[in-house]
């Protein structure tokens, strides 16, 4: 593979299409030399991020695109997910309360998208968010290559 090149896939924002992004990213992660565990982790982080884009940035299915890009260098594997939905800053979302020890979990807490963000923060080494009035939302997630 050629290091530093960007690889891009754009899907329409349907839940059924998220799998395509997962496979695209997993293939890239494999080429970049991530081990099986790390590939599983970047795949799950992408899955949750795409779900959040549909649920929160677009608010429903099928009203915009999600552009997924990956690039790799010997030190890291970087994923960028771009959408044109509402500004959605994951940093503003608190971890769901049920994750605290000894707290009785309430399934209602699972509806808020906090679970996905919790996964993204825990599975990836870096998570950044950018919003631009014209360009929309960009979520950048980095996995270090050991």
């Amino acid at each position, binding site marked *: 593979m050629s290091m530093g090149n960007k690889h891009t896939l754009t899907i329409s924002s349907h839940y059924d299409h998220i*799998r395509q992004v*997962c496979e695209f990213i997993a293939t890239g992660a494999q080429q970049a030399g991530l081990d099986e565990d790390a590939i599983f982790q970047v795949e*799950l982080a992408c899955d949750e991020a795409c779900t959040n884009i549909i649920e929160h940035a677009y608010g429903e299915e099928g009203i915009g695109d999600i552009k997924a890009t990956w690039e790799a260098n010997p030190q890291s594997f970087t994923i960028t997910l771009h959408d044109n939905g509402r500004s959605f800053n994951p940093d503003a979302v608190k971890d769901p309360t049920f994750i605290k020890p000894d707290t009785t979990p309430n399934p209602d807490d699972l509806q808020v998208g906090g679970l996905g963000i*919790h996964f993204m923060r825990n599975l990836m080494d870096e998570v950044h968010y950018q919003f631009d009035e014209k360009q929309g939302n960009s979520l950048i997630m980095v996995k270090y290559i050991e």
Partner: protein
Amino acid sequence: MNNQKQIWQEQYPHNIWLVGVRGRLDQSLTPQLNETLTNLLANGRYRLMLDFNGVTYINSGGLRCLIIAWRKAKTENGDVVLFGLDNRILEVFTMIGFDKIFRIVNTSLEAQAALA
């Protein structure tokens, strides 16, 4: 995917029911699991053991489906016990504290004992 069923159910003694899952528990498979669990619970089957030996992936939607079934079973003095999770799947559970919520064991025999 092959022709094998990805979700199946089997009855055991003491009104214990096994639900087997094979494949990726994501947007494509979770609705089937949800339907199976909802039907069992609606028919008074509150002692459920889930065979995760064939599960290669799970996301937050899959976890949400499990916790909803768990809560329903618990309110009826039942339980949802999981067995056969591989290390990657177990790590996902641990990351959000679900390993403390669900009883997770290694084999179907241990799951039966936990539910009997």
